[in-house]
Each structure stands twice: as C-alpha cells, then as structure tokens.
C-alpha cells in the first residue's frame, strides 16, 4: 500500500470527534469495494459530504486538481457515469480527456493496454476506466503508473455507484448499519449489485438479492448476502429497494421467459410499493426501463431517490478523484475546499 503520512493531519470528520487516530487515505487506485475497509468507505462518504457544498456555490469550482490530467476511458457505453466523472473532474479544475471506443483505434484492433499506454504518454495522472471486460482496470493498474478508477468493469464492480448508493442511503436513513436493503434483478450480470453487496455488508447492513435463479447465482451468498426468489416476500421487511435495470444488451438468452412475466413477478409497481414500509427508499442505478422493472408512478413518486442518486454521484466522484490524487499526502484534509 502507500506511504504513511505525518500524524499531524487533523481529521475534520464530524463523527470521529478528533479522538481517533487521524485517517490517511493511502490508495492511488479505486478498483473496487472489495479492497476498501469500512473506515475507507466512510472516509470517501465524508469527503463527498464536504464536496457537496461546492455545487451550491455560485462559482462551482475548487482548484484541488489544478494541473492534473484526468482521462476518461470509456471502452463501453455510458451516459451518466461519464458525464458525472467529467463534471466532477472539471469542478476540481482538472484537465479532462474523453476516450470512447467507438470510432477509435480500438475499433482497429488496438488492445486496451496499448490504448491506455498511448494516452498515458500524453501525461495523464488519473485514468477513469469503464470496460466491458471484468478485471480490465486491475490489469491496467498493474501495468500503467497512474491512478486508476474503476468506472464499471463488466459484471464485476462499479465502486463509485455503490458509494453513491450508500451515500444516498446514509443521507436518507441517517446511517446504514442494521438496515436491510433489497437488490432486485439480474444479480448475476450486475456490477452494481456486487459493489453494493460488498460495501453495504462492510458497513453492517443486511442485503437480500432478489430475482429468478437464472439471474441469482447461489454462490453469491459467499459475498455475505441472502437470496430470495420472491419480491413479494421481502417487500415488508426492507428499508430500501434497489431495482436493477434489465440489461437487454448484455446477455442473450433465456434469463426469463418473457418481459411481461418478469415485470409481473419482479417489477416494482404501486401495489407492491403499498405493501412496503411507508418510508421505504426506492433506488435505481439507471437507465430505467419504465414499465419493465419499475413503473413510472414508482420511479417518479415520493419514495424514489433516483435523481438524488445522480446528484450525489457527482460529489462521490469529486471525492474519489480528489482522494486518489492525494493518496498518502499529509495535506489531504486541508487543501480541498480552499
């Protein structure tokens, strides 16, 4: 891991009260929730909390990453995550470059590693990588000397999504320890599910994943969650329901017999919402298939925090960009909002 920083760096975290040993972020990469400790997760959330304020200013910019170059490497399509990272980087005054594989040399057969090495040769400090192949950011981090942030790798992890989900839960519920969260949908092919399970478990929440066995591998319980094949069974017992998108494009073939059946059995609609706790939080990582996994009435209703998730995503990504570039540096807590 990274070097130790001087112990003089004062924590400004509210809940740490200055009593605990000062926390120093030591990671130059953020590859997954798998590698983060509970303390590190809380640190990202707390850092994001202080960045949230920046977006309320009239001049929504801080110089924390001035002179740094952030390359957004999107080997796989993305709207939300890419725009969120782009805005986050520019709010921190970084220079950004955007790569998308469509129309690039990847289409001519250039490998991921060659592509990244070529962009790196322009002088890049941080690579934000979205890739269809699980482990791609990990491979790059082994071979390229720069900060690597995983913006979603295949069905593996999507750590900033989990962080923004947990951030939103914490905001709305006051904390996540002891809370129970349902994640519904194609768990097998979902990086959002994996990162959420890992992160929520580390912070002491319970997670139940819901879907048909074709979408919920039994071995997922090794990650510390429970399995239910009945959405109706779990409705009344959860504090939040995270509805995953049915990803038509990712895997073909017989995950469920028909969309109609799926949405009848596993879709979240008003009738089901009525059986939930009154204050249940309805989440969705987007993009939504309205009328499939969630009805418009629920997605746009008072229990939904879907747009709040997007807003929080910006603060989380600012925090992550900031932290990985300051890894191990003692001035970490003081410079960020100057």
């Amino acid at each position, binding site marked *: 891991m990274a070097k130790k920083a001087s112990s003089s760096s004062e924590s400004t975290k509210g809940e740490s009260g200055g009593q605990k040993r000062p926390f120093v972020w030591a990671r130059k990469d953020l590859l997954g929730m798998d590698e983060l400790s509970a303390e590190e997760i809380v640190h990202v959330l707390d850092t994001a909390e202080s960045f949230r304020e920046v977006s309320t200013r009239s001049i929504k910019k801080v110089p924390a990453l001035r002179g740094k170059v952030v390359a957004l490497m999107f080997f796989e399509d993305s709207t939300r995550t890419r725009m969120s990272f782009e805005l986050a980087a520019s709010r921190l005054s970084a220079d950004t470059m955007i790569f998308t594989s469509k129309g690039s040399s990847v289409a001519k057969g250039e490998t991921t590693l060659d592509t990244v090495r070529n962009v790196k040769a322009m002088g890049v400090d941080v690579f934000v990588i979205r890739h269809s192949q699980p*482990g791609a950011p990990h491979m790059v981090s082994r071979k390229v000397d720069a900060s690597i942030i995983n913006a979603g790798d295949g069905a593996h992890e999507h750590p900033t999504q989990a962080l923004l989900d947990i951030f939103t839960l914490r905001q709305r519920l006051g904390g996540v320890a002891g809370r129970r969260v349902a994640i519904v949908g194609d768990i097998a092919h979902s990086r959002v599910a994996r990162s959420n399970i890992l992160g929520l478990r580390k912070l002491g929440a319970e997670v139940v994943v819901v879907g048909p066995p074709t979408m919920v591998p039994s071995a997922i319980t090794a990650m510390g969650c429970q399995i239910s094949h009945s959405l109706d069974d779990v409705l009344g017992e959860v504090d939040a329901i995270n509805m995953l998108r049915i990803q038509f494009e990712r895997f073909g073939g017989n995950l469920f017999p028909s969309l109609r059946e799926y949405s009848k059995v596993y879709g979240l609609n008003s009738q089901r919402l009525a059986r939930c706790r009154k204050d249940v939080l309805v989440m969705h990582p987007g993009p939504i298939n309205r009328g499939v996994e969630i009805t418009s009435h629920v997605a746009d209703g008072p229990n939904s925090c879907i747009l709040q998730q997007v807003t929080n995503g910006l603060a989380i990504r600012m925090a992550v960009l900031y932290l990985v570039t300051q890894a191990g540096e003692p001035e970490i807590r003081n410079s960020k909002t100057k």
Partner: protein
Amino acid sequence: MNDLIITNGRVIDPASGLDEIGDVVIAGGKIARVGKARPKARRTIDAGGMIVCPGLIDVHVHCREPGHEEEETIETAAAAAVAGGFTTICAMPNTHPPQDDETAVNYVIQRARQANLARVMPVGCITKGREGKELAEMSLMTEAGAVAFSDDGEGVASSWIMQRAMQYARMLDVVLMQHCQDPELAGGHMNSGAVAVRLGLAGIAAAGEEIMLRRDLALVERVRCRYHVQHVSSAGSVALLRQAKAEGLPVPAEAAPHHLLLTDAACMSYDPNYKMNPPLRGARDVEALREGVADGTINCLATDHAPHSAEESELEFSLAPFGIISLECALGLYAKALIASGAMGWPALIARMTVNPARIIGQPLGTLAVGCEADVTVIDPKRRWKVKVANWQSRSRNCPYDGWRLTGRAIATIVSGQIKYEA
C-alpha cells in the same frame, strides 16, 4: 564397445517392476543391459543417488507449429521437453492449419526429425478442421504416423460423429483422446462457483465435462475402441472413471500439473496465467484428482503445455487465451503434488509418466527392456531448484510457476542412446 553406461543409479522400470541399484548399458541406440555388470563404454554417467528410468512421455503438448511459430515451434517444444526430462511428446493438432490430413502429419514428423531432440509424435484431428462435422482421414493419417486422434480444445459435440470416429479408431487400433466439454456449457472463462461470481466472470461448470464423459463412456461400452480422457479436472469425472473401471470399462485418463496444484482462487488477481481449459477448480477437486492419480483411476500425467505470446498475456482475463506452459518444470510439479504430499512414491509416479502413456498411444516405449529404444531419463529426486521461466527453452513465457521452489528434476535426458540434455 557400448555407447553409454549409466552407473550406480536407482533403476526404476515400472514396466518390469524393477526398482534396484544398478547400471543401464546402452549400445547402438538400444538398451543393451540392465544390471550390475559394468562393461566398458565410450561415455559413463555416474548416477549415484539418482533415479534412472525410462524416458518420460507427455501425451499432451501444443507445439504451435505450423501457424504460431512466434509462440513455439516443434524444435523449441522438443528442446523444452528434453530439458524437462521428456523423451517423447505428442503434438496436439490444433495448429493453423489443423493437423487433419497426412501432409500435416508428415510435416510434424519431418520437423521433429530435423530438430533431432525429443521424439515428437503427431496427433491427428478427429474431424476435418476440428469442426466436429466430418471425420478427418484417420486411416491415411495413421499410415503417415499419427499415434492418436483428438479435436483437443473442443470435445466432439455430435454423438453421431463420435460414434463413427470410435468405429474407425477400433478398426485402426488407435486411440481417441477426448477433451470432454459440452460446447453449450463452455461459454465461460473460469470455474463456475463463488470466485467466478465474485469476479463477474462467466463460469464453466464441471457438469459440462462430466456430461460428455458420461456420453463417451456409453459409446465406448458399445464400440469398445481405445479411448483416453484428456486433462480430467473435476471430482465428478474422477468418480465416473472410477465407477466405469469397477464396472469393467477401464479407460485411461490424464491429469495436468495445474489441476493437481492450483484452485480457482488463483484467478482472483485476473492474471491470465491462471486461465485454463478445463478451468482450475476447487480444493475438493484437487484432492479428488490426487486420489484418482494415486489409486490409478487416472493412470497418466500430461502437461497440456500451451504456449502463448506475451501479447496474449497482456489481454483482459476474459479475452486472453486458455493455457500455460510447464514442460520444463512438470516433473518437479508432479513431485510436489504427488510425492511430497505422500500420495505416492517415485515408482508409481514414473509409471504414470512412462509405460502408461506409452501404452495409451500404443508405442513400444516407456520401458528399459533389453532391445528397446534407449530412451532414458536420469532424475535427481533431491535436487532443490527455483523455476526461472526467463531461462527456458520454450519460446513462450506464460507460466504461473515462475519463482516456485521445487524438489526433483531431470539431470540427463537420453533419446535413442544420445544425450539430448544434461543439467
């Protein structure tokens, strides 16, 4: 005058049950005598403290030539073989173009002769182009010198074609080597299970191997041809083979070093050096394989030496090709998995690397019987050494064992009485 005499070694010849201190005398490229007498020879190797055994045989090697000479050639594979103590290797036919006709078989034989290191015996395709649709010209390839047939890399999916191939194999008295894998369950990148789920990688369930093995056993029972199971990977397959043997249908089978030493947990790093086909499975499977090798259910050891270029090792796990190289450290790996673990002693290990594979491919090799080809390997069973892949003869470097400390290695490899390798 004799050519070569290897004195004072522990001579182990499982074919004849021999295990005693003695000398091996070689003349005219053949074994002239095994015993205590010490006639004169042009060259003497003092094998005190060493094991002297028939030359090791690996029935499962990918030489990559023709087609991918940047990864390996018949010459470099043969050089790697003798450096690992192997005097005979079988060249799998998934080359480009595939070895599916007599010309291709002749090419392998000719290139092996030019290399003049280990014996390289061609394996022909079961089906044309390894496409599983039409039988390849098995008769003509057998005449040309193919010792076995396989579509390795894939199993023959069609039961109909497989039955036809078996009928031909029976007529020709050659062996079919099957890579048991149901193609419809083959789409993944690693063993199906908790690690694959965690990594978000599509899994390859052991059931895919066992389904084809069950089918083939049913066909072998019907056709009664020579049939060999390649790289057995799962506890379920071991159980199937053991049961078949108990019911009077013994079929030979091989195990690869990686399946005896590594589990799918190694994939956690996304290092493609742990991407195998069949995949690394669980600890229970490793245990079952070791037991299967110990009790003879699996009677053969084979490396599945699969060279890949450095470029291919720089790909994402899911895009990287399957397979690793291990010819040059296999003996030490087997010793670690099977001898150091207490599963068996040297004579049993040597049987699984000499006479048993020789019988599988139907060649009069793998023995020190007088008059046989003088293929001999001298092993230092106590030699402690460190794997340094950078120094290997193989043209590729895709190997997860780099830096491993092993005990036991070949110190001399003799083919037809000629020393081809000496440490």
